[in-house]
């Protein structure tokens, strides 16, 4: 097995790959922490009003009919 001396070009490529890897990992961690914080702070998510969904104060969200009776 031969060990070739590392060329400067390999150093640059390594720095780019490590940099992109670290940036992506940081983005994933930040997204996770942001999600946890949003959920624990009861950020209202009005788009998700399925069964079991609650308001920020903990009261259950009651689904409203899209069409009123008699219309």
């Amino acid at each position: 097995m031969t060990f070739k001396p590392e060329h400067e070009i390999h150093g640059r490529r390594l720095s780019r790959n490590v940099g992109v890897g670290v940036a992506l990992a940081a983005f994933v961690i930040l997204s996770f922490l942001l999600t946890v914080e949003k959920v624990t702070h009861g950020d209202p998510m009005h788009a998700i009003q399925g069964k079991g969904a609650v308001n920020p104060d903990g009261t259950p969200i009651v689904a409203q009919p899209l069409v009123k009776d008699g219309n």
Partner: protein
Amino acid sequence: MTDTQTFSDVALAEAGRDDVMAAEPGFGDFVELLKPRVMSLVIFTAFVGMIVAPTHLPPVASFTAILFIALGAGASGALNMWWDADIDALMRRTAKRPVPSGRIQPGEALGLGVALSVASVIMLGLAANLVAAGLLAFTIFFYVVVYSMGLKRLTPQNIVIGGAAGAFPPMVGWAAMTGSVSLEAFLMFAVIFMWTPPHFWALALFMKDDYSKAGVPMLTVTHGRKSTRRHIMVYTVLLAPVAMALGFSSIGGPVYLVVAALLNLGFIFGAWRILRRDEAMAEADKYKVEKKVFTFSLLYLFAIFGALLAEATLHGLGYGAL
């Protein structure tokens, strides 16, 4: 290709070392594309805008907001370097930037700029609110399309109007926290807006041939140096009442007023010294005064926003409110 050769070995041999080296930018080259020094100013002013706001987001959301405001600014820097690569190559100050020096291809700068712009606006919207995200999107649009693609090569007022792009970050920071824009946010914007022309014109005075070589119609090129010196004086005088007005708003106070008064006196004195000089005097001492005023203008902005930060800290402790 033998067993011990890699593709890059072959590429190096076939294409020539320099070509391949240019095609292999390091991570630092991409960071440089985001104009980290400009980003530091954006981070600081946006941070102050967030801290002085009356309402606050939780910590992770606040951190995410400021991170993506900074990345949005970086994205507009990358797009500016993509668009201005031709004139950057002609100016001493900018010739070593990653695109004109060939370390990064224009397409890579464009790709990074667009991707980061979209990501930063979406993430700010998710972390904070749509008002802040909309303002950030407008800031990027204003810097890249209105300033870089439009005003910069068309009119000597490029810096005056284009300065708005650099003035938005504290307003975006404020909007991220409050979901709206108020008088205080507008005054912070106005301070940077009025500060930008004398700051850049001082730079243009001692970066003598750069702008004329590149054909950029800076005031020094179109109206001459004497007129530029007068303009610096006028804008510095106009900046003072705007900066002082901020001290009488809800985010100001006595500490800010004292600091702002001293800084404005210093800046006006510097502008007056620039006004009194002619080109022969400036050439004789290698633009010593102009360089000093340029450096002072940087200190001015950091200190003005630093004083706002000090006021917010004092307000938090129950001191310093007007």
